[in-house]
């Protein structure tokens, strides 16, 4: 075990995957000499060479579409979108091509490929370097969408994603990159795509979250325990598609109260599906209202520090709503 932050864990897992299998190639803007703007591919060019560490032109549609071609012909591409905000020019490739290749060819062709994209706010990124994009893609059948939030999960799920015969959109919350550290095994291991994870056990209410907000929930839960003796169970969704309904519902059935927390624009966000699922499947197990905390429905967070704070749900807000729900 080694203590690492999220970005180092991802770097190391990707590095090991490349070292272990020369079908793995990385491509994206600035992944070469620069080692990625977040340093995820630092040192890769020197070690693995230009043919496997491909600095692409500034063209996200091509990055994803070329990865499709590579995956069709025996490679295991890991494409990097520099910021999740810039995946939109590749939307057609993601939705029409990546997600549908297997289905439309009736199983004849498959796409073992990964698209990595750093997402989320809290980094002074303003309107175009802070976005949550998971709701767009979680809705697309044929695409697996994962949102690991700890070093352990990130490394393990990246390994699972590269091994997966199907395309995986691998979303890395930028704010967690250097903020969150934890123990990571030194031996290769995988965290399966699919299962959610109970990150903190509790009995009074369930908070369901992912990304930076997961850590806010954990902090709020600790505060509630400390200050009020309230026991909050925190479920880390980890995979948005396919969604692990069982783990979520089991927790909600146990505690009888549920709260979903995410930083994306609230309306039509991924949290809506989670709330809807609970409402449909566990309505009669609930002892309190269903609570949803999401980012405000404004185009994105501002650059000014106080505007960014006004956008992002914080620990105080989450703790207050938890308390309210617990006391309901």
């Amino acid at each position, binding site marked *: 075990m080694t203590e690492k932050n999220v970005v180092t864990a991802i770097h190391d897992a990707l590095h090991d995957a490349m070292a272990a299998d020369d079908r793995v*190639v990385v491509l994206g803007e600035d992944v070469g000499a620069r080692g990625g703007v977040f340093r995820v591919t630092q040192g890769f060019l020197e070690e693995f060479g230009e*043919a496997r560490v491909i600095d*692409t*032109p500034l*063209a996200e*549609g*091509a990055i*994803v*579409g*070329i*990865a*499709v*071609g*590579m*995956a*069709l*012909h*025996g*490679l295991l*591409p890991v494409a990097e979108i520099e910021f999740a905000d810039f995946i939109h*020019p590749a939307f*057609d*490739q993601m939705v*029409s*091509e990546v997600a*549908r*290749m*297997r*289905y*439309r*060819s*009736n*199983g*004849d*062709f*498959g796409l073992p490929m990964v698209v990595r994209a750093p997402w989320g706010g809290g980094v002074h990124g303003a309107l175009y370097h802070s976005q949550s994009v998971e709701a767009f893609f979680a809705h697309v*059948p*044929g695409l*697996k969408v994962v949102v690991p939030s700890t070093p352990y999960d990130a490394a393990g799920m990246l390994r699972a994603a590269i091994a997966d*015969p*199907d395309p995986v959109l691998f979303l890395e919350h930028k704010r967690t990159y250097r903020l969150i550290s934890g123990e990571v095994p030194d031996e290769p291991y995988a965290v399966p795509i699919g299962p959610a994870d109970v990150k903190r056990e509790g009995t009074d209410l369930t908070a369901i979250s992912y990304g930076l907000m997961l850590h806010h929930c954990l902090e709020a839960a600790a505060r509630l325990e400390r200050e009020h003796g309230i026991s909050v169970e925190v479920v880390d969704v980890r995979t948005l598609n*396919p969604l692990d309904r069982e783990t979520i519902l089991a927790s909600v059935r146990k505690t009888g109260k549920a709260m979903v927390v995410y930083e994306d624009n609230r309306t039509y966000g991924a949290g809506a599906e989670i709330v809807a699922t609970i409402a449909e499947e566990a309505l009669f197990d609930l002892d309190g209202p269903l609570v949803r905390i999401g980012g405000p429905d404004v185009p994105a967070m501002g650059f000014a520090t106080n505007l960014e704070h006004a956008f992002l749900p914080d620990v105080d807000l989450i703790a207050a709503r938890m308390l309210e729900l617990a006391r309901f």
Partner: protein
Amino acid sequence: MATRLTRRTSPEALGLSADDLRSMYRTMVTARLVDEAAFRLNRQGKAPFVVPVSGHEGCQVGTAWALERGRDVWVPYYRDVGVVLVAGMTPYDIFLGLFAKADDPSSGGRQMPNHWGSRRLGIISHSSPIASQLPHAVGIAYAIRYRGEDAVVGSWFGEGATSEGIWHEALNFAGIHRLPVVFVCENNRYAISVAQNKQMAIEDVADRAAAYGFPGVVVDGNDVLACYAAMKEAVARARAGEGPTLIEAKTYRYFPHTSDDDDRTYRSREEVEEARRRDPIRRFERVLLDLGVLTASDPEQIAAEIKEDVERRIDEAWAAPDPDPATLYRHVFAEPVDP
């Protein structure tokens, strides 16, 4: 500026035997007759959607002929009946697709007709969004080079496709890495109803190759041998590691865009008639008669033979089983999905 391929090359010089030539001719006639049958089936209510090839047979068969089955990769678009016949699809396969049957090799009846694909034949599955297959062709070419193979990727599209951003992005990447891929533009002067002068301010699509650092070649799409010659050279360049080529074949589509279209709204009958006078099949026929590869009675007899085969395949395909709706959830992922 793009090269114009005007020089006549003899079939021998191109390495084409009499058998090759007859085979090419038969493939072109097959494409034409498949079209005619498909439109008849459409009128009979048996084929809800038809995408015609007629007019494009020369440029399709000519270019596709320069690739090798079992070695090279084909990335066609919906109009490419001629290309996929060369690649190894049969009329039966095509009619299975037309009727959306379970055994349709492209998609098992999931996709619209003419959305080709077959791993076995090296035909890459494509979708409807125009030009979206181009980066796939380029990525495959990258993988070919990476793996040290000597295959070449052929990719086909209309001139309309060249307006899409992803077309530009794909060609740019291919140029940077000098990949073994050939881009074939079947320029029929219309994107559905939009005439070329509303699509681009230039005369020759091939001129766009200069933006990507590789050669562009204009060829007469009604001259199957010229198309073959252009593609043969491009394939040789690609195989030798000299990078991509953009070939523009000037052609015309004789029927409406699809069976849903009404082309009288946007082009005159005279224009269509005029284009039909340059029919690639008739023209090739004359060459083959001159060369003595065909005798005077051959064209009619070959057409009759193919027609008979086509009719039989239609009946067989029509009788084939429909997809099973219970397969709805199959192949979302490699692992079965529990609805």
